[in-house]
């Protein structure tokens, strides 16, 4: 399901790759693209110990000097925390309790044909 907007298509491709990566690492994906008026949580996943909120940033080519993580500044971090609170308010009761909570950042670089060049997974990024 490729949308008309190429940027959205890149994002969706990155998130699919990220989801596959997280599942390969043994995490269960609980929710994707959780949206409120404040923004969007890309992936909410969990293992036995940890509830993980993931922000996925995808770039085509490695032209951007600072890499995908440059887009996750302090304001974005604040917003992701707010979104996590909202997610917990909505789904928290229905989710089995885990002792830890973590924010991860995934930086994905693709080439023009959509092939994966590089993936960085920062656990506990902030």
């Amino acid at each position, binding site marked *: 399901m490729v949308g008309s907007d190429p940027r959205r298509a890149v994002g969706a491709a990155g998130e699919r790759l990220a989801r596959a990566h997280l599942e390969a690492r043994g995490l269960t994906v609980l929710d994707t693209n959780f949206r409120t008026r404040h923004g969007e949580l890309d992936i909410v996943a969990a293992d036995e110990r940890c509830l993980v909120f993931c922000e996925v940033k995808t770039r085509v080519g490695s032209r951007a000097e*600072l*890499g995908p*993580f*440059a887009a*996750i500044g302090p304001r974005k*971090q604040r917003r992701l925390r707010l979104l996590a609170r909202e997610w917990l308010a909505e789904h928290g009761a229905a989710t089995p309790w885990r002792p830890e909570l973590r924010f991860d*950042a995934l930086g994905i670089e693709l080439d023009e044909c959509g092939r994966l060049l590089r993936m960085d*997974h*920062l*656990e*506990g*990024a*902030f």
Partner: protein
Amino acid sequence: MRATAAHGSPGGRVLSLASVTTFALEGVSSHEVTVEVDVRRGLSAFTLVGLPDRAVRESRERVRAALLNSGLDFPQKRITVNLAPAHVRKEGPSFDLAIAVGVLAASEQVPSEGLTGSPLCGELSLTGEVRRVRGVLAAAVGARGCGYRRLLVPEANAHEAALVGELEVHAIPSLARLADLLHGRWKPERAAARDPVPTDVSEAPDLSDVRGQEDAKRALEIAAAGGHNLLMIGPPGAGKTMLARRLPGLLPPPSLEEALEITQMHSAAGIGDGRLATQRPFRAPHHTVSAQGLVGGGNRPMPGEITLAHRGVLFLDELPEFGRAAVDALRQPLEDGHVTIMRGQRTLDFPANAMVFAACNRCPCARPPDGCSCTASELGRYLRRLSGPLLDRIDLVCQVEQTAALVLVGAGEGGGRSEAACERVNAARGHQRNRLRETSALCNGDMDGRLTRLHVPLKPSLAGQMLAARQRLDLSGRGYDRVLRVARTIADLAGRDELGPSDLDEALSYRLDGLDLLAA
């Protein structure tokens, strides 16, 4: 190696730690600061802890730009910088270089072995050049005190730090060169101190420029010989300021230790060109100076005029015009030879061992006595501003009269030259050094009460003379000691080992003057 090995590890955390030593200026001395840098995987962030002030916090931007512009890498990782000890406030930009090198070592761009045992300080420009910083001499003295053998400083300051002989000082022009040095690709020369400014004797003002005023010159000579404080009272144009300007020329040149102290004070205040001082300082603050300006202080404590005049002369022209608070603030330093300033969580100590030379007019209108229109109350108010406690700390009070017209227009030399006076002063100081060699005092003026009683014993006949004088003049205990010290200096000038009645008389006459005037 470590970075790549941990890259794919399940923890996903690469951590690397570096620690760099630097010296931070505090007042006029410096203390050791350890800069710890931790670089680990995470979203790019730069956190600086350990009570940094604004200038230190801004160093992040300078460090980032300087690293990138030097062809080095600023890691896009989570960087934490700690300045230890964490309870001392850190000020100024001199931490830049240490932080940058810490980042380089923690991200394994330079080997960290080269950093142990060589503290460094310097400010960075965005291009990666190392800029000069204030107080490098204090840092060098501190590094020597902490047992370091090597110090890396900005190129512009290197000759100043090299004044501390036991230290191997290397001049760092830029961050890239420093990286070369740490990699062992560059072996810098040991920096050398610059030759001191040659003193031009013919240029210095000479005593013979002042015509007449033989009494005042005598008082000046005594003050110079014993390091005593002096107040001259007289009409404008009589030559008070001229005499004051000639006082530094009468004092013996500073010893090496003294010269280092003088240079360190000036370096900490950011004045001077980093050469070793060969002359004693002469500071003449304007009478609008504040108490803080005079004794030091401020939110970020800076040395005041009396500290800048350390081992030299502080000239206070128009003493009654100075603010009351400013003059009173001088009391403690005049007595103790240092200033203690407390600011919030710290106490600073500034050395302030200067001779005070004060000058004032006889009355506020400053006209000659026959043309004076001041009322008695104006006169009283003017003289009362010479605060009593300060006057008590002045050893010699001397009245200066207008020089007679005949002496002024007379041809030829105006009396004794500085050279001759300087020789007498040196001889007198020699006697004093001999007598005081096992104490911290350098001249009679430095003696405290205990030393005074020890070194100026009074024969019974002289004791009687002093007792009478004490009652007549209403001398305080402090004033009594000061008379003895001045008398000792007068005897030293004459080369006498034992105090004579004439020495005591002359010393007392310099107190009499002051008290007469106040009573009038």
